[in-house]
């Protein structure tokens, strides 16, 4: 597969390491009342859709960016690639 890196353009998927569902960005608040339940869901409950899926890929043999890749798991079509850092910020993560 070819992943169109937002900074580096088309790169062979062989340069990347795959991690799975990009929901891993949405790590729960450790001080939440229901933190234990939320972390359980965060850690163990993932979707595995046949179709469009947002996934985390690490450009291990490249610029070491984590990317959020929107990929159709049936066709391997990739519709969008974003820097995970930008996605994380857009989802309200900070520090």
């Amino acid at each position, binding site marked *: *597969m070819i992943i169109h890196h937002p900074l580096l353009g088309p790169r062979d998927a062989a340069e990347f390491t795959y*991690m799975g569902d990009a929901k891993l*960005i949405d790590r729960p608040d450790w*001080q939440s009342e229901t933190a234990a339940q939320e*972390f359980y869901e965060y850690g163990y409950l993932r979707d595995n859709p046949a179709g469009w899926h947002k996934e985390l890929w*690490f450009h291990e043999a490249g610029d070491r*960016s*984590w990317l959020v890749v929107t990929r159709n798991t049936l066709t391997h079509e990739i519709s969008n690639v974003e820097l995970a*850092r930008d996605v994380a910020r857009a989802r309200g993560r900070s520090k």
Partner: protein
Amino acid sequence: MTQRNRFSTGGQIDRSTTHQFVFDGKRYHGHAGDTLASALLANGVRLMGRSFKYHRPRGVLTAGSEEPNALVELRDGDRQEPNTRATTAELYDGLFAKSQNRLGSLRFDLLAINDRLSNFLTAGFYYKTFMWPAAFWEKLYEPVIRHAAGLGSLSLQDDPDVYDKGFLHCDVLIIGAGPAGLSAALTVGRAGADVILADEDFRMGGRLNSETFALGDDSGADWAAAAVAELESLPNVRVMARTTVIGAFDHGIYGAVERVSDHVHTPAEGKPRQILWRIYTQRTILAGGATERPIAFENNDRPGIMLASAMRSYANRFAVTPDQRVAIFTNNDDGHRTAADLHAKGVKIAAVVDVRPDIPRSHDYEVLHGEVIDTKGRLGLTFAEVRLGDGSTRTLECGALGLSGGWNPNVHMTCHQRGRPTWNDTLAAFVPGPDLPAGMCVAGAANGTLSTAGALREGHAAAVSVLDLDTSDVDLPQAEDTPVAIKPFWYVEGCARAWLDQQNDVTVKDVKLSHQEGFRSVEHLKRYTTLGMATDQGKTSNMGGLAIMAELAGKSIPEVGTTIFRPPYTPTAIGAFGGRHRGQDFHPKRLTPSHQWATEQGAVFVEVGNWMRAQWFPRDGETTWRQSVDREVLATRKSVGVCDVTTLGKVDVQGTDAADFLNKIYCNGFAKLAVGKTRYGLMLREDGIAMDDGTAARLAEDHFVVTTTTANALPVYRHMEFVRQCLFPDMDVQLISTTEAWAQYAVAGPNSRSVLEKIVDQDMSNDAFPFMACANITVCGGLRARLFRISFSGELAYEIAVPTAYGDALMRKIMEAGAEFEITPYGTEALGVMRIEKGHAAGNELNGTTSAQNLGMGRMVSKKKDSIGSILSEREGLNRDDDLRQVGIKPVDPEAPVPAGAHLMAMDGPIDAAHDQGYATSACFSPNLGHAIALGFLKNGSERTGERMRLVSPLTQVETEVEIVSAHFIDPEGDRLRA
């Protein structure tokens, strides 16, 4: 032997170059430009092999890569290559080949008895027959069947040749260099785009080399040669002959195998036999041509019976006829071309048999309306029986019979992305469907356009469309433009032992039987009968099987559908997929800066995360590794030892939020760590299980150096980047690996300070540089270095680091400075012994199933801050009272073994999983204690010190009575560390 079936003129062979070759021990001659098959036919050899199951005599069916029959063992010795198609093996001087799958000689194969037993060897034979007794399968049936069936044999020696991998980029990849491919390449090449033109054949031109049609004023072959010459002169065109594109993968990536040295006796020094190319392309024009299909009838597999188009290839390209008396059996006009071409070369045409009533007549030879119903000839065709349209029969004397059942476009590559072909009634064949791999278009015969002029036009049009050119007018040469005239006809009524798949010996009867037994899906048919499952993947046979299935099921062929086409297009050597990654080059080696020095000391090395680490340093007189390791341990604890610890992962963590960042990745706190101090850190996974451990040294307020275990350096770095980029994107923290930037040595033992005082340019006293101190320093009068007072061994110890280039020199300097203390280099075994003696957890304990609680570090998990894994580490299941805890294990009998991996059981009661109490993780012989020791995990282990248990390993039949003790076997108070 003379080349008695070679025409005196014509063909694209080089008659001035004669090659000698040996087939089945006999010497023959051929010419440059021959294949093994064409050279054998030229010499009158029709019999080339025995069939897979029935050991029927077989010759060539085709003249190309679709060949199911003429498979040979090419070359001898360690270069022997089984199942090589004689039709694609390029002749070279000294070629050596043997027929395969025979017992005895090819002419008198003892296993031909299988053919007489054929009634018992039908579809599903193995499934039905060898069911019982069960033990017989492995011991009797399978060995016998394996011996009798199967194809060529392996050399059972290492392949002496090498294979390369390579990477190419282009704007347009053109697959196939026939009329369509060449026409496309000329247009794209002239337009200046980067083109790769790949063809599996060693001579480009495709069918142009096999036909007698003219292109304009030239012969097809001459036009092709001129086109190739022009393309080769263009700097933007890469012309790749002998290169098979084997698969269309995602997003414009294609695999291609270039046979660099298959056409020579031995590859030139340093040259690969083959190259597996990974081609990245924007657009692809598939011009892979079409494959003619045979017609099935009784005994249609005798040597001499072949595709009519293959006969034309042999005649027109190689100047060879398979026999001097030839008949043709056809259902379409194309078959008649073969008769005309051969007749023109002086070959006697026994007759052309056409299943169609209204057929073209000829003045030159007899044309019959009818069907071939049977053949004769034990080792080669002698007679063909024909049933004429009026019901009468006739016997034709002929040594070769050409079959023309129509053409199948080579749609394979169009289907590699789950595309399905569509049925075309005019051609009675599948053509590429609408769902092509992105960026691909198809031209010429592969697209169902079977005329030469059509191929030229489509190739050009494809080129215009992929480049979006506005020129539509082009000067294409005049060429043959005959429409296809065919009557679908797959097999002769009433036939039974009529071969569909000649390689896997599948007959019309087998397909009918499978239908009768209820196999309705084409995928089931394939697997039950093995139709199309051989190395040729049914290129000449699948359609016949589908047609019969359709007929029996009362469906149309497209309703039945095809099986799925998968890469590779033709068989590909495993060696090509392995490339250079073989033997010593299987994966990279990582050498520490002191590797050369360690080699000089006679070190025995062990591979850890690709690193070559010194395992121990044997000395004269030591006969076992234990002697060396015991000596290294004792010497270090007594005086001083030195160990290369460069391999530990190191990550530079900087930024104003660096301490906060470490607080996230480690379960214990780092914010309050003073500058100039080092702290042990335990990293958890988010599920609360330990991931890795190491130290973090604070070199400045905003600068830490973090270490990881050797094996986990990469995944830990990846995890740290995940935390930084995905979880806390606004933290001011920067990461970079410095694992290889520094050479690092552990100097351990009571005299370590005395040794380093001679090297380090600063005060080393306990006050100035206490336990867990760290600093940027200089050594040897000015070289920048880092010093850490940390200890894995439990002794007074330091780790000292210098830039990698100086590692060798520093090691030699340490040895020189330590000479007066008899400093001893120690390897990973002694390192392991000392850490077990000290009770330090390592990879065996951090094994992906253990929590901080299990490791006895539960209290380290800070609840005052957010860190990865802290919440889930509080889960009930990880905090049970009877949970596993790290313990020490020692044998009651000092001589008894305590193997790692053995399980702890109560002194009484059964030994089984239900009564399992825990297990030993790391074990060694402790030279300081004089007996074996182990670390392990035991239920509620921290409360069970002093208890006697059994440590059992049923697998190795060990059962040892042990005592549960503290995991800190040596210096539990840590006095030595702080000395």
